[in-house]
Every structure is written in C-alpha cells, then in structure tokens.
C-alpha cells in the first residue's frame, strides 16, 4: 500500500503522515473473521477447565456464517451503490471480491464442521485450528478484494502463514511436519518471487496500485518492456504456486498427503479460490492491455497443468495424493477460464471455484471419515466394498467423485462446460479439446474408486468367473475388516450441504450461473 501512497504524494511536498479514511463496512467479512478468531482465542484462554467438546467448532462455524451474512449484505450494498474503491484505492469493492468472500466463507463453514470430529478423534481438540483457519480465510478474502499488489501480497502472506501452521497441525505424525516444512520452504520461495514481481512491476509502471498500473499501461506504450514482462512472469509464478499450477505444483501431493485431512480440504478450496482471485484480477483487468504477452504463457501453464494433473493422478495409490493431482487438474480448468481473458472466462472460473469448494470439501470429509483414527488409512484399497459397509457414505462419495469427473447433472459438469465454452468463445479450440481429453483421463481415476467402492471383497473380485454368472456367495474376507465408520453429526451436516449444493446446482444451475456472471470486476 505504501508504494501507491508514496507515488500519489506530490514530489514537492515532503512525506507527511496521510490520514487514510478506512471504510470499515466494506471490509466487514474480513473483519468479522479476524475479530471472531481473536475472540475465540481470548475466550479459550479465559476458560480454565477443558471446554465442552465441539464448542470451538461451533464458535468457528458461527463466525464463518456471520462473515457469510456480511458478504451477502455487502453484495446487496454493491448492487445498490455500485462498485467502488475503499481505503484509498487499496481495496476494490466489487461483486467479484464478494463472490470470493462467499466462496471462502463457505469453505470455512464446511471446514469447521468437518474438523470437529477429526480433532476429537485425534485428541487435538482446541481452538487453535479454527483460529488459524479463520485468519487464513481472512487473508484469502483480502486477496480477492486487493486492488494493490502490496495488499495482494499481504493477503497472500496472511493466508499462507496460517496454512503452513495448519499443514503441520498434527504434531504426532511425521508426515504432517514434513508437509508443513515443504510447504513453508517452497511457499516462502514463491512469496519472494511474487514480491520480486511486484517490485519489477512497480519499476516498470511506477505504481503498485492495480488501477494506476492499468491506467499507465493504457496510456503508455512501453518499448523496452523487459522489466514489465519479468514482473508479470514473477507474479504469475507466485500466484501459480498457490493454485498449484504445473510446473509450480511439486509441493502439492506431499502437502496434501501429509496435512491433516480436513485441512487439506480447506486448503484445496480456499487457497485455490484466493490464488485465482489474484490471478484473475491482476491479469484480466490490470494487464488487460498486455494480453497478447501473458495469454500464451497461461496457455502453456494450462496445458501442462491439465495433462500432468490428470496423467499423474492415474498412477497414485493414495487417495489424498490422487485428490492432490486431481486438484492440479482442476486448476488447469480454471486456468482455461483465465486464458480466455473475457467476462465469460472470469464467470466460468468463479463458478468453477465455488462448485469445486463444495466438491472438494465434501470429498475430503469422506476421506477423513474413512481414514479413521490416526488419519493414515488412505490407500485406495481402503475403499474396496465401502458400499457394503456404509452404503450412504459410498453413495455420497460417488456423487462427489462424479462431480469432479464432470458427469452431467452435477455442478462439476457445468463448471467444466462453462470454462470450456469460454475457451471456445475466445477461439482457443485446441485448449478446449485438450481440456476435454484430460477430463476423459481424469474421469477414469474417479470412476476407478467408485468401482472399487462397489466391488466385493478381494476374493470375489479376483475370481475369473463373471460376477453375474457364478452366483457363489463369497462370504470369506481375507483382509481384516476396518473399524466401523461413524458419521458424526457435524460431518453429516457438512456432507449434506455439500451434496445438496453439488446436485441442486447440477440440475438447476441458473441462479449460481447468474450469480457468477454478476460477479464482475471493477475496471
């Protein structure tokens, strides 16, 4: 922020303390999260005895819901009063930022609900995880609203630092610590690159304010634009890291696998939403004039992300690693929307992010339940004949996986359809076809798990006889049955919400599509 403020100050006047008017109401969703997080922290230190189980999850859910309500109010306000800037142009108040707030708010609600049972089961119940999640959510929301590269960086750091800690939250498990370490080192590196990109962009355009950068670029033609190009590339790398775009994805499988499962779900949803919010605003609006420079780069990123994500997911034997690669594949789709660089692409990406939030949190909620105590049973074989143990859970997971695969009448299908149609509209036919082809590959590994869930125990599956013809009831199960899966109340609610959203939006998508279409960016 200071960069823009300094730039605005007339050169003759010495730098005096500027009185910045802060429109707090325009930052209400973030403020609620931060105040809520601090309140939870204070409350927890005031309570001497062990708190009632579930109290912190409840508090966190309430805070997230309040933030969601505030987002809804803000949407209404923006609709009435129009888009505007706040905090001396550092923050954009537009439907786009509110959409991101709502997406992250939804991720927080679902994440808080899912985390409750997990923490109790692991004996980690306490306010810390919720506080960190709420704070990281506020960072993500700030990224969505940032109208200044430095505010974007602030949001990125708030989001990331909380996530680093969250990834290593399960202290007893080595993998969790390893995940946190990897995420931290690579994340810090990418933050540095991002900051360097900010510096180069500032050098090339004279401002860090997105509005001013785009004004400058619209009015001037930079002949020696090396610094600007390098700046754009570094910004792309920094944000590309957060959204797990190939080739900046190396951390994803390890971190997704090692982090506590509910955290993984939240990370997949919120970090992606925030990272893409930054990418979409910076590239489609600020660098709109430089489109011919960055579009080919994003094209290559999108293709790499789509192909690597889908192909490597096929060979994974661990569900969390598989979902990690699948999230890379999803990032590729959202990059298609970015590459289109037009209103449809932005709306498509937003729709995708919202739909993905529910799909992925639902999926990881199921993974959390199936993994059971210790959060370690993540082999694909764990899912064999899940349908005979928990038919309802298997059916729910089936819906989430099908949605991720893009089967019609789920939100995932329309999300893919939306970004692909944006690509076609901007004449990126090759990208659209590549996207659809990787969807075919991706569909395979989702369906494989579904088949596994609905197939009988090992002995029956290996037999040469057709399962329809033999009629031999194979009652013997060689492997020991895993402990009975309990579906706790809170996780049940989260699953129901995610399931309902995935199916209802899949069948009647109009309201959400209109919602995404109205989520326009401030120009």
């Amino acid at each position, binding site marked *: 922020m200071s960069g823009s403020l300094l730039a605005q100050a007339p050169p003759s006047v010495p730098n005096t303390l500027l009185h910045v008017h802060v429109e707090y109401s325009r930052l209400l969703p973030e403020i609620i999260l931060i105040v809520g997080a601090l309140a939870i922290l204070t409350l927890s230190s005031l309570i001497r005895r062990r708190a009632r189980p579930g109290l912190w999850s409840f508090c966190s859910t309430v805070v997230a819901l309040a933030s969601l309500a505030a987002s809804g109010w803000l949407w209404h306000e923006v609709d009435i009063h129009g888009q505007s800037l706040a905090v001396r142009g550092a923050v954009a108040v537009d439907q786009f930022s509110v959409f991101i707030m709502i997406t992250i708010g939804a991720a927080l609600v679902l994440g808080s609900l899912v985390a409750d049972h997990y923490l109790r089961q692991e004996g980690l119940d306490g306010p810390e995880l919720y506080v960190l999640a709420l704070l990281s959510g506020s960072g993500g929301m700030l990224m969505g609203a940032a109208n200044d590269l430095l505010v974007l960086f602030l949001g990125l750091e708030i989001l990331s630092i909380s996530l680093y800690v969250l990834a290593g939250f399960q202290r007893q498990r080595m993998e969790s610590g390893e995940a946190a370490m990897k995420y931290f080192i690579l994340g810090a590196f990418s933050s540095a690159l991002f900051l360097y990109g900010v510096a180069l962009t500032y050098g090339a355009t004279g401002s860090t304010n997105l509005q001013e950068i785009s004004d400058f670029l619209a009015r001037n033609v930079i002949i020696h634009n090396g610094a600007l190009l390098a700046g754009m590339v570094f910004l792309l790398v920094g944000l590309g890291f957060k959204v797990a775009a190939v080739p900046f994805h190396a951390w994803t499988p390890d971190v997704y696998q090692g982090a506590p499962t509910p955290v993984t779900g939240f990370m997949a949803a919120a970090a992606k939403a925030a990272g893409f919010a930054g990418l979409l605003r910076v590239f489609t609006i600020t660098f709109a004039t430089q489109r011919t420079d960055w579009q080919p780069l994003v094209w290559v990123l999108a293709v790499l992300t789509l192909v690597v994500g889908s192909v490597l997911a096929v060979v994974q034997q661990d569900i969390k690693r598989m979902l990690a690669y699948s999230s890379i594949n999803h990032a590729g789709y959202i990059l298609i929307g970015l590459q289109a660089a037009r209103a449809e692409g932005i709306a498509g990406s937003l729709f995708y992010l919202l739909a993905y939030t529910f799909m992925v949190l639902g999926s990881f909620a199921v993974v959390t339940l199936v993994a059971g105590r210790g959060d370690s049973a993540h082999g694909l074989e764990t899912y064999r004949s899940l*349908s005979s143990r928990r*038919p309802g859970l298997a*059916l729910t997971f089936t819906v989430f996986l*099908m949605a991720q695969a893009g*089967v*019609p*009448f789920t939100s995932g*299908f*329309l999300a893919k*359809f939306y970004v*692909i*149609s944006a690509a*076609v*509209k901007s004449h990126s*036919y090759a990208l*659209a*076809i590549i*996207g*659809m*082809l990787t*969807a*075919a*590959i991706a*569909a*395979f590994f989702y*369906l494989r798990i*579904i*088949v596994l869930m*609905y*197939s*009988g125990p090992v002995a029956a599956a290996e037999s*040469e*006889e*057709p*399962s*329809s*013809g*033999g*009629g031999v009831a194979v009652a013997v199960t060689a492997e020991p049955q895993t402990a009975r899966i309990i579906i706790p109340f809170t996780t049940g609610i989260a699953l129901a919400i995610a399931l309902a959203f995935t199916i209802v939006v899949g069948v009647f*998508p*109009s309201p959400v*599509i*209109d919602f995404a*279409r109205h989520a326009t960016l401030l120009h």
Partner: protein
Amino acid sequence: MTTLTTSASQFPFLTVLILLPVAGAAVVALVPRSRVELVKLLGLVFSLATAAVAAVMLYQFKLGQADYQFQTSHVWIKSFGISWHLGVDGISLFLVVLTAVLFPLALAGPKVHDQLKAYTAWMLVLEAGCIGTFVALDLFLFFVMFEVVLPPMYFLIAGWGYANRVYASLKFFLYTLAGSAFLLVGILTTVFLASPSGHVTFDFVELQKHLLTGATGKWLFLAFVVAFAVKVPLFPFHTWLPDAHTEAPTAGSVILAGVLLKLGTYGILRFGLGLFPQAAVDLAPLLLTLAVIGITYGAVVAAMQKDLKRLVAYSSIAHLGFIVLGTFAFTSQGLTGGVLQMVNHGLSTGALFLLVGWIYERRHTRLIAELHGIQKVAPLFAGVFTVVMFSSIGLPGLNGFVGEFLILIGTFITHRWWAVVAATGVILAAVYLLWAYQRVFHGVPTGDNATFPEMTWRERGVMLPLLVLIVFLGVYPKPVLSRIEPSVDRLVQHVQVATHTHQPQVAQPKP
C-alpha cells in the same frame, strides 16, 4: 423453469419417458439390498411402465407429419440459451420405442446374482439417458444425455462383466469420452457461430436456420462425426467394441448393441446432416468408404472368431456399416432403410446376445469349438436362434431384409460401386452366421452339450416379443416405413436445398 410453449394441454410423453426410469432408479436405490425380489420387480415395473408410455405415444403419433411431435420446451439455463426442448419425429420415434422395448427384456432375460439393486438402478438410469438422447432437440441437452449414458454402461461392464471386464470397460469409456471432447467443442463452436446475433441458443431447430458451410462447416462436421464414429463404431474407431461387447454382462451387451450404437448413427443423421448438410455431402465419399470397409472387414473378422459373443460383436460392426452407408447415400430409400435398420439391428442383435448369454449360463463357455449338437437336445432353442440368425443375415420375410434392401437400393442410385461392394457383406453375413450355427447346433451332442437344457418359460417369454417384431417388420413393414418416411423426406429435402443437389428420380410404383 417457465414454460415457453405448452403443447396444448398435451400429456408430456417425452419428459415422462425420461423421468420415469429415473424415478425407478431412485425408488430401487431406496429399497433395502436384501429385498432382491422386490428390486427385480420394481425394475421390471418401471421399465414396463416406460414401455407402456412409449406404446401410447406410438399410438398417438400422427401419421404423415414430418415435423417434431409431442414437443415440450422449458427454459433450463437462461443465460446460456439452453432449454429442455424435446421432440420426436419419424426418425427418432422407433428408436425410442426400441429402447423402451429392449430394456424390460434385458432386465428380465439374463440372470444376475450379484448386487442386483445397483445393477437395476444403473440399467434404469441408462434407459433414461438413451431415451433422452433420442428426443433431445437442444444441443446441450443432447450432449448431456449422450454423456449420462456413459457412467452406467461403464459400471455395468466393470461391475458385472466377464474376466477381462476392467480393461474392456476402461477402453470403452476412454474411447467414447475422447470422442465427446470433440463433440462438446464442436457443439460450442457451432452454437457461437450459428446463433442469431444477440442471443446464444443451443436450440437445434433454431440453429438449423443458419447453416455453417465452407471449411468451418467441414471442420465442425468432422468434430461431430468423430464423436459419433466412435460410438457407431465406424472403422477405424471400432477397436473398443469387440472387447466391450464380449466382456459386458448379457444385458449390457444387449443394450450396448441394441441401443447405444444407435446413438452414434442417430447423431450423424440428426445433427451431422441437419447442421452441416454441405459438409456431409462433400465428405460423403470418405464416410461411404469407411462404411464399406466396416461392412467387409467386420464380416471377415466375424467369420474368424472362436468366441460366439465376439462373433456377434464383429457382426455389429458390419451391420452398423450398412446404416452409415444408407445415411450417406442421401436418398429417401437409403435413409429410410438406415433408420429401419437401426431398429432391426437392435432387435436381431439384441436377441442374439440374449441367446448367447443363455448359452453361457448353461455351458459356462462361449467357445464355438466346445459347443456341439445343441439342436438335438434343445430344438426350440435352436429354432429361435435360427430365426434370429436369419433376421440378422437379412433373409427375405424377416426384418433385416427390408432394411438392407432399402439401403442397397438407395445407395445404388447415387453411389453405385459402394453399393456393389457392400452387397458382398450380405453374403459374408450368411457365411459367418451359418457356419457358426452349423458348428454349434448341428452334429451329435457330446459331453456337457448332451444335457443342454431347453428354453425355460421365462426365456420364451422374453424372446416372444422380439420374434413377433422380427417377423412383423419383415412381412409388413409399411406401418413403420410410413411413419419414418415423411421425416426422412424432410431431411433429404433439407440436404438438397442446402447443397443444391437433387436425388435421382426412380420409377414410382403406380398407385
């Protein structure tokens, strides 16, 4: 959802035809797994109810009308111009009826021992998808239905198939989805280019008003055709078919051959010809050649098969080649024959797969070499097999003859040499089927073949409707042809107007 056109308080046949099986699947899913009999009953009831609705629709279908009937149109996704637009004309009518007839038979015919509940639910979802594909008049809806069909079929093959089912189901799935990739991009491009300026629409009828020609039209036509050619399958996109058909459970094979392959030929006919007539005419030699290759290649390879089911599978490639041949002849006869042959192939190959499935249930083998002299111990079974086989060969008096004859006439008028080569396919069909029959049914039964059980009453009940239809369509195809023809004539007209061509006049019989 707001109603755009209410078809004068008419019963929404098509919506019901799609939703009834879906409702059935939902009800089946709610039944406890242990109630196997109830699941079986519910599956039958819902598929029979669908068949009944289809029958009433067939009865109410107005003769002599070329336009879509029973149309319903509701806005679905307004901002994309997508609507729930359904309609049926002579081209799709009998495909819908065929689907509605085959599903109860496929559910009743083969025995399923394992996970009957999931099996029945998937079958019903599959039925909804198939019917939806045939009646969709909105490109988005068509694509959705075209895709909805895939997962159930994948699960049916992967879950209830034979030894090599994992490989076969995967191959089927990847091939078809890869084709769909081109279809979706093709649909979107068509929609963006052909929509009237100002608003995007996926409505097929609207899009047909602004046809895309030139290189754009050709590329888009190819994008559509690739997806459909995989589904048909047209040589050289056919390699998934033998595996999928052979490894699928019997009901899966029946539906796969009987209905699913027609999604491809129907797609070419409706959307390929409907949206890109110029490109279709320009590229007809290519497709005719591929069709003829498919006919001869499929037949020759079928003759060499050791596995009875694989033989039937390869025969499908040959038969579907005929349908594509008739389609790209661009004559009323060829197209009418093509549409009729879609129905015929569904009946005869569906029946063949059922019979082969029952042979497997009895003998646990499908190898021709291990089967011998069945005619002696199961004469009725052999008799039914004979009729169905002759229908597949195209013996006059049975349904297959009418379709193939019309196709060959229609092609001969415009593309003589292709018709000549294709005619060898008829002979080759006799070769591989009769030869197989001879080896399986003739001679003295030995070993396990000597105790080959005769047809059960249930099997007779399943076969009876198929045999009736096979004979009826062979002897008196007029009621069917007179319903197909107006729509086909309109399509031919559409192609001719768009391409400034004329189909050669043939002598009409005096009234």
